[in-house]
């Protein structure tokens, strides 16, 4: 009973924390955007055919002539209702733009998360079986290599190798721009997967390298524990000790790594989306930044931060489920 109340308490306090974080991000981004020089009609400023009166009317139409505080309060009220305003550059509601983009990013990041964690944990197991061996050192050097790699550069190199030199995968985009409309459902799914493969593998290599480094260290930390010695004394096979006894205990900190790795995964996705023209949140935010599309940038960063915060919250709760020792804390 006490431990249940503990979980509920943890959930509530973490939820409150998450709301505060999102509120701070909202405010911060709003302040930044409004103290920065330039406005959405800056491009029109250079056009001599646009009269000052017309520009003033545009500003009034979008409420940009109101005092900052008024704009802010109205913005908060709108955000709370899920109304992010109108995207100047895309000529459609911001919410619709983000609704289209977020699933693409979640698909990319989710696939990479699963591949990266599965691969990273697998590699760490192979390494920890014989620490210090040639296999361990080779794999360790490999994960160090990918760990130290800029995401966009790896994406460019993957594109060079697997789209230009060996054209196995398409260069860019989420689907074939012309043929996708006319494909059978099955072929359309295959087309999507083919376009997903290269960005997802790139992102998975990067997160997998970090997971492998972390997981190897955790496995080695658990190995000298008494229960491992007991298992050996009982005559349990080395493989079973590793997979059942050691891994189960060494996986617990990795669950917390899940939450910690989300911001990196998300920002990695931003760069990789840019390289592969993958129409997700990063692609949308970067386009909005270059067109000075205030509402879209604001909403994009807020939704991204909220997604990351929510993800970390879920990872924390998962941690409480996996490790009974921290319940009630």
């Amino acid at each position, binding site marked *: 009973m006490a431990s249940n109340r503990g979980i509920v308490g943890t959930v509530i306090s973490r939820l409150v924390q998450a709301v505060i974080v999102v509120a701070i991000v909202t405010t911060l981004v709003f302040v*930044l955007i409004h103290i920065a020089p330039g406005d959405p009609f800056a491009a029109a400023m250079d056009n001599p055919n646009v009269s000052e009166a017309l520009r003033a009317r545009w500003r009034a139409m979008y409420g940009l002539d109101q005092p900052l505080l008024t704009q802010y309060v109205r913005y908060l009220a709108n955000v709370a209702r899920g109304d992010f305003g109108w995207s100047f550059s895309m000529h459609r509601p911001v919410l619709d733009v983000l609704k289209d983009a977020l699933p693409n990013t979640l698909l990319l990041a989710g696939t990479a998360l699963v591949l990266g964690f599965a691969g990273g944990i697998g590699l760490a197991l192979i390494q920890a079986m014989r620490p210090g061996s040639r296999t361990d050192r080779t794999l360790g050097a490999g994960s160090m290599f990918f760990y130290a790699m800029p995401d966009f550069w790896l994406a460019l190199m993957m*594109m*060079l190798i697997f789209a230009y030199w060996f054209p196995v995968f398409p260069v860019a985009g989420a689907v074939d721009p012309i043929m996708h409309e006319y494909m059978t459902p099955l072929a359309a799914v295959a087309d999507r997967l083919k376009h997903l493969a290269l960005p997802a593998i790139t992102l998975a290599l990067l997160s997998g390298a*970090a997971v492998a480094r*972390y997981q190897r260290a955790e496995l080695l930390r658990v190995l000298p524990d008494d229960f491992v010695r007991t298992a050996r004394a009982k005559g349990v096979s080395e493989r079973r000790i590793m997979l059942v006894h050691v891994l189960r205990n060494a996986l617990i900190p990795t669950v917390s790594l899940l939450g910690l790795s989300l911001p990196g995964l998300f920002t990695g996705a931003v760069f990789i989306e840019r390289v592969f023209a993958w129409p997700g949140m990063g692609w949308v935010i970067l386009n909005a930044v270059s067109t000075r599309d205030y509402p879209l940038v604001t909403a994009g960063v807020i939704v991204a931060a909220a997604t990351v915060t929510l993800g970390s919250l879920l990872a924390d709760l998962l941690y409480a489920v996996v490790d009974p020792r921290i319940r009630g804390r």
Partner: protein
Amino acid sequence: MAAESIGTSTHWTRHVVRHAGFAGGVLALIVVVALLAPLISPYDPIAQPDIIGLKNAAPSFVHPFGTDSFSRDVLSRCIYGARVSLSVAGLATVIAVTLGTLYGAIAGYAGGVIDAVMMRFVDAALAIPRVLLLIAILALWNGLPLWLLVVVLGVTGWFGLSRMVRAQVLSLRELDFVAAARAVGASSPRILIRHILPNVVPTIIVAATLGIGHVIILEAGLSYLGLGVQPPSASWGSIIQDGADQVGSAWWISLFPGLLIVTTAIACNALGDALHAAFDPRHTTGAMAELDS
């Protein structure tokens, strides 16, 4: 069996420490090349000798890293780019480490409500994806001068370190030598600076070493987006950007600066890990992972 695993862990430590010399050597070499750029560089990095005939020339003996679409020598650009990449990362790290140490030390030493409020702020700051924030700032203040880019990178990079410093100070201030200092009438700033902070120095050095590698990658990414270092200055990231749109045909423009970034970042990480191992015998690789934020 237990003896074996202990044996291998010291083996691993020795292995790491042995590689620290190598990593330090690589870093020193890169720094020397950057310092001596005018002497070493085979060509002028911004000269455009023959914009038609020498455009996107593949690597050769004359141009080991090839030339870019303005016929500039990529090797020379990489050598001069080292100056920009290293100094931006180095100075930004100095700013971040200073802020993080001061903030963490004050929070940890003050304790109570002050500590709680200061750390809630850090929690919130850590929850904001740093790259998104940087993209927003740099895009809004288009074409920031180099020194302001350094400041922005530094000011957004100290939250993780402040947490570690605070945790250490929190436990250090309960120790007997601090009580002794207080008993002989030392003031709080004096206790903090003369007695507590010297014990945090190893953490700071490790964090700075890892931080430089991290910021080099971060700056490269921002420059790739056209938001970081502005022309005519060029960091390794900006050179990658020069070749990004033609990676299928002129891959050498993006490949070589990227390799330099990876080499430098690996050297920083290896050195940081080795220093960590040397300072803290109970270390585990990856324990400093939270410094990435």
